[in-house]
Every structure is written in C-alpha cells, then in structure tokens.
C-alpha cells in the first residue's frame, strides 16, 4: 500500500487550478472530465512523479461548514514543505496572498499559514536537513 494522492476540497476547480499553478507554482498532472466536475490533480515541478494533489470539488453540503469552522480558528488542514518559509511567504505576499499566520520559528521548524482563496488555509513549513 502506498500514498500517491492527497486532496484539498476547493470551492471552484477552475479558480483552484489557477491559484495552485499560477500562484503556488504547481503544474497540472491529470484532468479528466467527470460530468459537472473534473478529476483534477497537480504536482510539484520538483517531483513530477511524486504525490499528486487532487483539487477535489467541495460540493457536498457538509463541506462548507467544515471548512468555515477550520478557517475561523485559523487551522490549516493541509501543509506543504518549502526550503525557506520567509522567502516563500515574501514571494506569495507580493502576489497578493493573504497570510493568517506570519512566519513563526519554533525550534528548528518554521511555519506560516495562508489563504488559498478556495476556502482553505494552507500551512507552509521548513525543516532543516538533519
């Protein structure tokens, strides 16, 4: 058994694809039309054969209240790894990304939290190589 996919629930797949590729810098891997929605995944350009992120439509009625409650408390449900949180936060802020938590160093780990404009808060984290 292997983990090859992980998902974020997005309000709007087209908007999400733009944000996750044009702003975050991921690249589209698969796109399969499935009726009203699409099977839509992106990957990191640094690991094109690595874990795929599914931009999953959040159409189920339980999804909006779930996401709203997490966002109200500032909780990121998804976390990505970056080399330098400060540099990445600066780059994203210049592109108009809204941070709910500025870079925070806790021992060797630095994290920051931003809004993906699709109803989620996302954490970026850097852990120095041991």
């Amino acid at each position, binding site marked *: 058994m292997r983990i090859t996919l992980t998902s974020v629930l997005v309000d709007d797949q087209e908007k999400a694809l733009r944000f996750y590729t044009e702003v975050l810098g991921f690249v589209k891997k698969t796109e399969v039309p499935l009726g009203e929605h699409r099977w839509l995944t992106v990957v990191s350009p640094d690991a094109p054969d690595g874990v795929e992120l599914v931009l999953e439509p959040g159409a189920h009625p339980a999804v909006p209240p779930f996401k*709203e409650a997490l966002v109200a*408390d*500032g*909780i990121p449900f998804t976390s990505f790894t970056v080399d330098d949180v400060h540099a990445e936060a600066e780059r994203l802020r210049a592109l108009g990304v809204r941070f709910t938590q500025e870079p925070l160093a806790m021992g060797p780990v630095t994290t920051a939290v931003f809004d993906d404009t699709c109803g989620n*808060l996302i954490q970026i984290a850097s852990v120095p190589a041991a």
Partner: protein
Amino acid sequence: MGDVFKALADPTRRALLDELQDRDGQTLFELCTRLLHRGVSSSRQAVSQHLDVLEQAGLVRRRREGRYTFHSLDTSPLRAITERWRIDPEEGPCGSP
C-alpha cells in the same frame, strides 16, 4: 466585566497574554502552536475556554476579519490595579519611575 484577578490567576492564561504581547493579532491555531512550543499541552478547546475568560475580563479582544478571527492583547484593565495600589516612583529600580 469578568474578574481580572481570576483571569490572571491561571498560568496558561498568563502564557497566552505573554504570547499576544510577543505578537498581536493571532488566530487560535497560532496561539495553540505557541503554547505547545512552550511545553503547555492544552487542547484547542481548553485554550478557547481560557481565551473566553480573558475576553470576559477585558484582557483579550477578539476581532472578526472576514472569515478569520484574530486575538489581541488589551492591558487597560490592569490600570485598575496600579490605581488601587499605587506604585511609588521612588521605589523603582535605580530610583527611576
């Protein structure tokens, strides 16, 4: 207005005020992360309840901004303490006020 003395009597609540003094305008998530780093392992629910007590005492303000809620420190209720028991400026360190 809740009791400022009762609000200050708990070490977790004092730690929350320290963290807000360090950085104002934090989400519940960030405050919980910071407490964990301090070695205070309270549940998110417990931290939220501590923030309720601090808010009732006027020491913490919650600000709803769009879909997010941020917490801020308000030290103005502490003024009542020094007004009630005045601090003699002559007794300050090095004789300075």
